[in-house]
């Protein structure tokens, strides 16, 4: 007998987001639906995303360990926890972060 596929699959990626697949409904706390604009989504688990609830890859910037980066092929300067300038990141798919 083939295993039944669960309707929603939530997969935790080590050192990364939670990935959700299947027939989920994504909504804010007022139960207003958020349309992610794609089938498979990655939800922020580290709190550093500028586009919450979606992951934007910022978990990789966690910690001063980034200063021990491998040599960059384009040359570099010491990374000292520089934050991105405060410009708004807009996307048609994300609700304002909170």
């Amino acid at each position, binding site marked *: 007998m083939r295993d039944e596929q669960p309707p929603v699959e939530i997969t935790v*990626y080590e*050192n*990364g*987001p939670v*990935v959700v697949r299947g027939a989920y409904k994504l909504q804010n706390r007022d139960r207003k639906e958020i349309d*992610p*604009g*794609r*089938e*498979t*989504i*990655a939800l922020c688990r580290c709190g550093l995303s*500028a*586009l919450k609830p*979606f*992951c*934007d*890859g*910022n978990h*990789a*910037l966690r910690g001063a360990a*980034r200063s021990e*980066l*491998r040599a*960059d*092929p*384009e*040359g*570099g*300067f*010491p*990374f000292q926890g*520089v934050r*991105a*300038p405060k*410009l*708004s*990141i*807009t*996307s*048609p*798919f*994300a609700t304002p972060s909170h």
Partner: protein
Amino acid sequence: MRLPAPRGPVSTALFARLLREPGPMPSQLTELVDALPETTVDARSDEDVQISLWTCYGFSYEGFDGIDARWEWEPSLLAVRGALEAVFERDVLAEVRMPEDLTPEGVPSWLMDLCGPSTPAGLLKFMHQNATLEQFKEMAIHRSIEGLREADAHAWAIPRVAGRAKSALIEIQADEYGGGMPGRSHAELYAILMSELDLDPEYGAYIDQIPAASLSIHTLRSMFGLQRRWRGRILGNLAATEIGSSFINRHFTEGMARVGGSKKARWFYDEHIIADAVHEQLAAHDMCGGFVADYPAEWDHLVIGALATLNIRGLFARSIVEAWTAEGTSLRELAAV
């Protein structure tokens, strides 16, 4: 799409031959092609090699106006393509080494580390903080060769792999193509970016102005994708493209906002921040992890593919920054008519 202008002896002879019916190549051309290993200093930045190779692949993508479509599978052209690929591969691999102490199981996290965010420097820093709107337009032109056909070169891998790697590849590609919704594929968003910048969104419109180091990003991908023996390399290329992409695209969208780029123009970059945060996980863990498990004899191909991708990308970035630092254009000047 029209045939591009030649850039050296090989492309001059080749493009003249393509105007006629498919068949054997003239001996003058086969002699030039046979001599490529000796006459080519660095195929990655060789204008003649890259425009010739780009044109060879063009038959499997867009095709060329008024040129016989049967050239796509003509053995004489495939032989020319093979010789161009051999010298390109030689020069790409010259700077690529398998890392010591890397095990197959370690590949996914190694890829995340290698291709993940790094100190913003060089081209990325320049786009973020210094590039003018005009330079954003030049960048859009350079990357139009891959952007307007985003995902197509990786699609070649679909019939060439099976199992978990295939499932993950499909999951990534489906999103790249907008889930099948017209108007939402990444390639279509790139066309919007170009239109918003008052650029022609037709594929290949600017081909003659795009230098070899920019063409190499696309030819490398096509070379890997079109050969089953290199299916590991094209998957490594995809992983290296997706991983860390959110970070890169955030810098591009912020930079473009700095010079007044509209929200519509920045949609391509903004979409990639979210999409590639998903794709990088799928690419590293599901696709590459699955490939390493199901194709253990080819695990090193993933590594070579990823390293080659970064090598070509670094070459591209350096050549652009060099041109802009010298306060000139990074595009090729069109020959006077």
